[in-house]
């Protein structure tokens, strides 16, 4: 196995503190103005789990201060479900029996048209792991096409080299999302059964490669359910803060993807319930007050409405996780995961406005490319 990057710090000492943190440690963490891993560990502890309302109040105050009463929106567009990867938990993995397809440029134009008609201007393009049918050149061309249609285009695809990242940014890509999936090396090895993604350290270093190629924004995340969530959040925090020291001009965001049912009947070994997920989000907001926190339509309408603006500042909406899902002109395929909040943008925005939050479809400009 390749060695971890030199900037990588183990979260184990902080993980041990989370187990024994007392109510006083939680109070101290809530009062702290510059939170580090010790404060995060306290806020992720069982003791903090009993003070969820206190955490929520602090999270709300910080979110309001740094993001105001707004919530930014984006929409995912699945370009392809071809995949060379063997992720045990994913509906797109190469050994799943399902029709495979990719959008050609005409069908992609049609999808973009449908999304623009819904008002979207901030689009996340997704593929599976690098495959001959949907490779780097295909992705780069897709980015260029999308960038002609909307102000902000980001990608969530396979890990790349620094040179590839530079090319994709030159094509008009403004941001990259790439989850480590799990920061626990043993779980990682177990979950990623073959292919390029088996390289734990290589994936850990992918954000640094993108940022060295001058990524403007980078989204990190751990797939909740694969390993102990406290360890995952601590490692993610250390990863982000190390990257921020090296690449200080980039904007970082953190997503909270929680495993849900998908093809292959994978069962999450460390399921995260709603109260736990809320605690993770509040703790991260308190310790990363300026970082956008992202929640997808994997979550229920009730949970999303409740947590919007408390810690979460960015959400996907009206998502289809199938290829060609917006025009519905393709044969049905299984999505990468099931969507739980199925509201259209109008219904979703109405719900936001009812709680005094302004939905923001455009918070970026193509002139920044």
């Amino acid at each position, binding site marked *: 196995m390749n060695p971890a990057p030199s900037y990588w710090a183990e979260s184990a000492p902080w993980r041990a503190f989370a187990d024994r943190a007392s109510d006083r440690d939680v109070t101290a963490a809530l009062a702290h103005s510059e939170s580090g891993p010790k404060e995060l560990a306290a806020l992720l502890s069982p003791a903090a789990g009993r003070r969820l309302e206190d955490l929520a109040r602090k999270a709300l105050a910080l979110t309001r201060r*740094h993001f*105001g009463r707004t919530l930014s929106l984006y929409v995912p567009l699945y370009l392809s479900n071809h995949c060379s990867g063997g992720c045990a938990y994913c509906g797109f993995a190469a050994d799943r029996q399902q029709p495979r397809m990719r959008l050609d440029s005409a069908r992609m134009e049609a999808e973009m048209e449908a999304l623009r008609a819904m008002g979207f201007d901030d689009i996340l393009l997704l593929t599976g792991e690098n495959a001959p049918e949907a490779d780097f050149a295909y992705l780069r061309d897709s980015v260029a096409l999308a960038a002609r249609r909307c102000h902000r285009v980001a990608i969530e695809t396979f890990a790349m080299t620094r040179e590839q990242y530079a090319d994709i940014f030159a094509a008009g890509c403004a941001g990259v999302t790439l989850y480590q999936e799990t920061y626990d090396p043993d779980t990682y090895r177990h979950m990623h059964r073959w292919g390029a993604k088996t390289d734990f350290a290589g994936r850990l270093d992918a954000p640094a490669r993108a940022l060295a190629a001058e990524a403007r924004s980078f989204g990190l995340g751990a797939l909740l359910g694969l390993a102990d969530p406290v360890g995952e959040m601590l490692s993610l925090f250390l990863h982000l803060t190390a990257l*921020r020291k090296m690449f200080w001009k980039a904007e970082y965001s953190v997503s909270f993807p929680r495993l849900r049912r998908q093809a292959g009947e994978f069962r999450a070994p460390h399921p995260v319930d709603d109260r736990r997920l809320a605690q993770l989000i509040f703790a991260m907001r308190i310790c990363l007050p300026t970082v956008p926190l992202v929640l997808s339509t994997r979550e229920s309408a009730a949970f999303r409405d409740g947590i919007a603006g408390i810690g979460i500042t960015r959400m996907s909406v009206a998502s289809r996780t199938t290829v060609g899902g917006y025009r519905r002109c393709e044969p049905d395929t299984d999505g990468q995961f099931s969507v739980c909040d199925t509201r259209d943008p109008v219904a979703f925005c109405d719900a936001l406005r009812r709680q005094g939050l302004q939905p923001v479809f455009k918070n970026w400009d193509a*002139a920044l490319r």
Partner: protein
Amino acid sequence: MKTDNWTLGNRSFSSRLLVGTGKFSDNATMLRAVEASGAELATVALRRFNRERPDEDLAGPLSRLPGLVLMPNTSGARDADDAVRLAMLARELCGSPFIKLEIHPNPHHLMPDPIETYEAARVLVKEGFHVMPYMGADPALAKRLEDVGCVSVMPLGAAIGSGQGLRTRELLKLIVRDSGVPVIVDAGIRAPSEAAAALEMGCAAVLVNSAIAAADDPVVMAESFAKAVVAGRAAWQAGLMPVSDSASPTSPLTAFLPA
């Protein structure tokens, strides 16, 4: 009646409260707050211009408010090149010669980058903009920006959105003392009393956004800031008594002595 107008470039203004337009819960509240503030200059991020969705476009409805001049800002720019591009596009879209130059490349603290700001200011002044640079409270930089032709300087009181007030008070005094262009405190102000304090120390104006947008009642808070700014300016004109470290008796102690 004696007027107390001040000028930026070739424009004269009476209100000394400038407002930001982000972070509000909806456009209607934002517009009511801007009106209540009496501001004649409001700043809008170019990235929040959205002609295709009038329901969320900030620039369109503001440009229809009578007596309000738009001052687009370059928020989102990481360097001088970004800022110049955004400024050009903003002028194209809304026609205002004013540009609030903001280059704060580190999203973690949003502190302005002095080197990129200076470079962009030089270019934009030559392009005919009325450049209003957001800057750290650095007296030397303030003079350098004035020298290249900025119509004002906008030093920070504290970090954007922090609500920490006039943490840079001593440096602001140096900037005010030496500046030949209006000094506008931008960022950090939480309470109307702090806005009054900035005017009392001789600043020409203040720019407020978060303190109004994040208030429980943004409209009433905007009115309060308007009153505070008027009071602070009047106090500056009236002349504040000097601060002393001992009591000063109202009847002289030496009155018994021959003159």
